[in-house]
């Protein structure tokens, strides 16, 4: 069982040793796209040949040094990578004031909010548009929640001269106006989705409907590490640049790995991108943070905490649903986390015990948002604000010489209207 007092490596020693036999935590999925019982390819027959073709092209791209070269080049010169690794000194001091004697870990951030377009989403979009080009596709579609993935997709479409259609829930269009206008400036067509609650899940449904009707020419750039195989694997691979950089930066800056990694989880792409390169480092503990919305006993978006395994959007994974398998509406103040599912690899990492998952409410995220503004001069997006709240909560329990590293996966410009409203301020 989970014993707070045991050092992490001891707690997991038995399991990690056992898994050495089956190699590692980093060799998922299997050749059918299954992460244990999760993942897979649950799509209509019309899409199946296309998904097999996509996988074939992805394997060819992985084996082609020119693909990696172009990806790396764009990440460096267009996206602005590597993103900095930053020691948040004043936030650390602030946390230590509230910590017991000798406690209060050093807080570090991976600054993916400094990427072009303001979030980690662009890493994945660069990878997928290069693949789309390789496959000769001439039209791009995507779904978006917060609008960050929509903006990143519209951006790469403008950069590569491809037409772009973005499906976005009507409710999200309302609460993410700045990003809607950005997408329009970038030349994307935005299709408001009114089915369901008009949020990310519904946008994804309409994305799949468009795709099935336009299989010949259209590439669907899925925005998170979910969907039918090979998407969860592919998105993870493209986002793993976050963890690879962080690992190297930690080693070169302070000569050791962090003790704990923290990331917010919508579908789980920024989290898996940070975690994956560290999964076989037994001394690195990992914490994924789901959105607890109004509270886990009320409406929320924490599929691991409040859901059970089921099948949606092409994969088997934890879902918020009723006893008949009808999908529940999620709620989070953060549009990017407002999704009733989670990428299949996280479901597997939860069940294997390698990653711990916890949740943070709307209110806690809002407090953390303001805390980072005032202590570090960084306005974070509401999504990583969930991770920051968890960092403050965990750091006080850790020793002063320990290191906690969180993914600051997006900046908060898009959220200022939502935050103002939540704080009762008019702008």
């Amino acid at each position, binding site marked *: 069982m989970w014993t707070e007092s045991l050092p992490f490596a001891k707690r997991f020693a038995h399991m990690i040793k056992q898994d050495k036999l089956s190699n590692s935590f980093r060799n998922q999925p299997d050749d*059918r796209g299954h992460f244990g019982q999760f993942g*897979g*390819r*649950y*799509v*209509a*027959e*019309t*899409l*199946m*040949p*296309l998904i097999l073709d996509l996988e074939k092209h992805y394997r060819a791209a992985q084996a082609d040094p020119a693909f990696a070269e172009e990806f790396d080049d764009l990440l460096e010169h267009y996206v602005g990578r590597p993103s900095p690794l930053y020691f948040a000194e004043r936030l650390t001091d602030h946390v230590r004031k509230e910590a017991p004697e000798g406690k209060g870990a050093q807080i570090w951030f991976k600054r993916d909010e400094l990427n072009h377009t303001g979030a980690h989403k662009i890493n994945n979009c660069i990878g997928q548009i290069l693949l789309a080009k390789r496959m000769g596709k001439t039209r791009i579609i995507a779904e978006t929640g917060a609008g960050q993935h929509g903006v990143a997709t519209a951006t790469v479409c403008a950069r590569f001269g491809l037409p772009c259609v973005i499906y976005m829930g009507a409710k999200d269009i309302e609460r993410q106006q700045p990003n809607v206008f950005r997408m329009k400036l970038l030349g994307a067509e935005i299709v408001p989705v009114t*089915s*369901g609650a008009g949020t990310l*899940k519904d946008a994804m*449904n309409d994305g*799949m*409907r468009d795709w*099935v*009707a336009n*299989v*010949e020419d259209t590439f669907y750039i899925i925005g998170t590490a979910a969907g039918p195989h090979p998407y969860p694997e592919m998105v993870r691979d493209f986002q793993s640049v976050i963890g690879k950089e962080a690992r190297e930066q930690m080693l070169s800056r302070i000569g050791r790995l962090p003790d704990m990694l923290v990331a917010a989880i919508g579908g789980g792409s920024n989290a898996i991108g940070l975690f994956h390169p560290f999964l076989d480092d037994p001394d690195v503990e990992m914490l994924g943070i789901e959105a607890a919305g109004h509270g886990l006993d009320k409406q929320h978006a924490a599929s691991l905490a409040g859901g059970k395994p*089921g*099948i*949606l*959007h*092409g994969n*088997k994974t934890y*879902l918020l*649903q009723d*006893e*008949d*398998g*009808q*999908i529940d509406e999620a709620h989070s103040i953060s549009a990017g986390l407002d999704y009733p599912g989670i990428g299949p690899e996280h479901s597997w990492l939860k069940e294997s015990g390698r990653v711990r998952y916890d949740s943070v409410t709307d209110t806690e995220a809002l407090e953390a948002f303001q805390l980072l503004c005032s202590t570090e001069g960084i306005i974070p997006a509401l999504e990583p604000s969930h991770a920051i709240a968890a960092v403050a909560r965990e750091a006080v329990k850790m020793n002063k010489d320990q290191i906690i590293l969180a993914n600051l996966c997006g900046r908060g410009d898009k959220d200022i209207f939502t935050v103002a409203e939540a704080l009762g301020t008019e702008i």
Partner: protein
Amino acid sequence: MTRLSKAFPSDRAALVAFVTGGDPSAADTGAILDALVEGGADIIELGMPFTDPMADGPAIQAANIRSLNAGTKTADLLNIATAFRQRHPTVPLVLMGYANPMTIRGADWFADACVDAGVDGVICVDIPVEEDDSLGDSLRAKDVAVIRLATPTTDAARLPDILKNASGFLYYVSVAGITGLQQAAQASIQEAVTRLKAGTDLPVAVGFGVRTPEQAADIAHVADGVVVGSAIVEIIAEHGAGAPPHVKAYVKSLSDAIRSAR
């Protein structure tokens, strides 16, 4: 012979009629199913409502929402099937829907429920052959037909995998797209049916976008079955609980056209 295999007469195409169970309410569905049979439908496809019907167009999406908003549960759907089987001992009934409501209590549970309700076959939209073990094995073990879909994107290399372990009939989705929007050209349907029939002895039923008696008759010339869904669902949307006579008249027009086609 099973109810399903008897439903495809040798001298004409069968009419396969789809409605969403529980639309406009679970209490109204029985009379609507009776109207399908009275109008001349040979096989009934009863849609299991789902919150996220990703392969469906606006008409059937709306039907799913109406059904769920009316409070339809899986238990209601199975009760509708059970009652239908009592009223119509010989008319084949097939459940059509999405993976999650079918598998949430376990594939074996669902297979048993199908047997208890007198369901002859299952069409699951989002379980392709690659994931067949999540449902197919359990259904086959209970002699419930696993009805497979073939589409315009199904190539020659995949077809044998799809036909292996398929039973009941083969459903050819004639359009790459969602339900209810456009219809495929007759020539492409004919070409596809010829190709499919070369690989299987199962009857081939063709659907997606069929609306008029003329279209149904055209397909009846070349295929073993004609599937009509959205057009019936739209009549239910318009007339609600008063739909049965309208449904019956419309289905009869399709059935008459099919019967005089060959």
